[in-house]
């Protein structure tokens, strides 16, 4: 998933394709309607209605969904289509789930001994919605619940599959350390002095970045350096949403910055929301300290 609207549209079209497909086919209630489960339900709810006890007992109508639940067992009735839809949402970072709506119609009472069967269909998948919990998609299913083959209730259920907006902050991970070697040590020494040094071939004057032992244009091993002015523009960028990496808090923009001197460098674009970064956006070099050892060149977006 990225911040680009056209990407959302393509993803939403894939989700929409599941509308109308079965979510559960000929599910069979794990237990027939029975007195112990009714009693446990009434105990939990504090429901003392005499309608739910005795020889003429009915099940509390609001138990409708409970008779279709798989508990800790597999759900053989769940269709590949529904599994795929949920997997698509999981894989795009919308891995958390919360039920938001439940609408039940009760056509006839359920009584102990009733054998339950049910069929379910994916009624709708919403567009991307921003909620307090995080951005996500609402999935609505409709389940017809039968008792002894006779339609007894209709259960409409809506869940929100979302990417949590407030994940607990993981123990602060440190950014990965740069690998410093003989060929690039001068670059990192420059960074330590808050200078972004570009290599220049002393034979043909070609600038090069990142640092290399020799000139790609003329092959000369001799070089000196030029300090970048710090001005540049976003040549290209990506927005990282998923998967998360330690020490990186998604979403964030990774930019390919073209420096005023003409060479390009990969770095973070900071100071502007990730979804406001654009190709051609002017940026200015900054040095950001991440911990007591690590300082990195980053680029502050300059919004007009």
């Amino acid at each position, binding site marked *: 998933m990225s911040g680009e609207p056209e990407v959302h549209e393509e993803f939403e079209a894939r989700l929409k394709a599941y509308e109308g497909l079965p979510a559960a086919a000929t599910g069979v209630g*794990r237990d027939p309607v029975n007195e112990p489960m009714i009693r446990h339900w009434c105990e*939990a*709810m504090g429901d003392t209605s005499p309608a739910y006890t005795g020889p003429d007992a009915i099940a509390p*109508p609001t*138990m409708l969904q409970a008779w279709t639940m798989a508990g800790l067992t597999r759900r053989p009735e769940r269709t590949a289509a529904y599994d795929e839809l949920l997997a698509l949402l999981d894989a795009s970072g919308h891995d958390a789930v919360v039920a*938001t709506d*439940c609408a039940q*119609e009760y056509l006839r009472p359920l009584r102990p001994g009733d054998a339950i069967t049910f069929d379910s269909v994916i009624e709708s998948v919403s567009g991307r919605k921003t909620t307090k919990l995080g951005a996500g998609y609402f999935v609505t299913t409709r389940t017809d619940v039968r008792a002894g083959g006779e339609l007894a209730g209709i259960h409409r259920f809506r869940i929100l599959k979302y990417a*949590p907006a407030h994940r607990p902050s993981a123990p602060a991970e440190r950014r990965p350390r740069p690998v410093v070697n003989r060929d690039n040590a001068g670059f990192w020494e420059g960074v330590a002095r808050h200078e972004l040094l570009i290599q220049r071939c002393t034979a043909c004057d070609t600038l090069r970045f990142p640092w290399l032992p020799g000139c790609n244009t003329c092959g000369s091993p001799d070089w000196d350096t030029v300090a970048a002015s710090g001005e540049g523009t976003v040549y290209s960028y990506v927005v990282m949403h998923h998967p998360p990496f330690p020490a990186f808090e998604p979403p964030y923009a990774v930019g390919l910055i073209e420096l005023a001197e003409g060479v390009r460098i990969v770095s973070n674009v900071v100071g502007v929301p990730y979804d406001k970064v654009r190709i051609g956006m002017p940026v200015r070099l900054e040095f950001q300290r991440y911990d007591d050892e690590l300082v990195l060149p980053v680029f502050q977006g300059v919004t007009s």
Partner: protein
Amino acid sequence: MNAGDRLPPLEIPITRTLIVAGAIASRDYQDVHHDPELARQKGSPDIFMNILTTNGLVGRYITDHFGPRAQLRRVAIRLGAPNRPGDTMVLTGTVEEVDGDTATVRIVGANGLGDHVTGTVTVRVPAGAGEGLSTGAGGDSV
């Protein structure tokens, strides 16, 4: 019972026990309804009540009031603020419409964070059962 009548409120302490008992009675083993650590990892500060328990409590609220012969025809709820341990939910209801022996009641369950649940319940109350409904527009309660 007439349109506009208010049901007496029902106060429900939201204990950890109620949340877990309700989840298990409804055969809902989603970890966020019983495991605080996994709930935190999913962005919630603690476990929270599942929708089936809320649905059961709303049903109980209506049948407690209208009596054991009242028949629930439809319960439609929407969840908002979560019911977490230590909170209290107060259910209130207003009769929105009476049609023959059938009433539509708008319900709200509010907790310390806001409205946990809003919705409507359609209930049939056969004549002579518990709390009667008015027999028609402007009719007296029976």
